């Protein structure tokens, strides 16, 4: 019963909130690109193929695109095929990280 309640509460939280919270809590250092919310194993693999093997390289691209949401989302879609939610999660996380650390 308790497990059922816990499962429900877990699912109702945004599924990337854990990843997001973990990422924006500290400097990203040399974290892999899969540490970014929205970027899982498959998308991460595609990004690594394109040369974006670390989260900080993606940050570089984010900054070069002047933190523009539309441009970054388009770039993400072109690079690894991220869908709208994944784009949103990744963009939102990087923007927040920049607000805190940059």
């Amino acid at each position, binding site marked *: 019963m308790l497990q059922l309640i816990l499962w*429900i509460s877990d699912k*109702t*939280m945004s599924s990337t909130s854990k990843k997001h919270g973990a990422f924006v809590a500290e400097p990203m250092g040399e974290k892999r690109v899969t540490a970014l919310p929205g970027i899982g194993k498959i998308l991460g693999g595609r990004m690594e193929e394109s040369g974006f093997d670390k989260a900080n390289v993606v940050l570089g*691209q984010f900054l*070069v695109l002047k933190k523009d949401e539309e441009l970054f989302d388009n*770039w993400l879609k072109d690079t690894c095929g991220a869908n709208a939610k994944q784009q949103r999660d990744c963009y*939102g996380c990087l923007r927040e990280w920049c607000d805190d650390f940059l």
Partner: protein
Amino acid sequence: MDSLSSKSLPEISNLLDEYGIKHGPVVETTRNLYVKKLREAMTKGKRAKPSSDKTFYREEEEEVTYVYRTPTRSDISGDGGAYMRSRPEWTEREYEHETSYSSYSKPRPEYRGSDLVDEPYMYDTPSTYKNSYSKITAMKSEQQVPKVQKSSRLVPLWLQLLFFLALAAFLYLVFSNMEINESIKGIM
């Protein structure tokens, strides 16, 4: 339409300015994105002032722009008023970045060839517009973002409450229909 993929990075940057597209540095990783944007702008037939002929012969251009320099200075200050008036119109449109930039992109091609002292002065008025515009859009996007985050639950709130009530009702039914033994009497 000349082949965009064969253009050099500075050429793409200039084209973006001509179409009034707001952009960051054009480097290898951003090149394709901006080429796409240019293609979209070209097919939509947006206002563009092609000055490719001017960028080729830079030495000649310096002589030419010398004549134009004095009018453009007064143009910028005079046009400042015009930009203010046209601003309310632009905010209603979808591409507010791009159209606002296109409204003052006209004087820029004329001095592009001269990388001399004039540049810092010329960039003064556009940059202040850029700042105030980015603030407005940043505020707008900030307002939108909290709204989006609130509705990003996987399972809607009302559904959760409904489920909880159904579960409570079910448990009550089960409990009330149980046969009472000696051991349970203490609870009831």
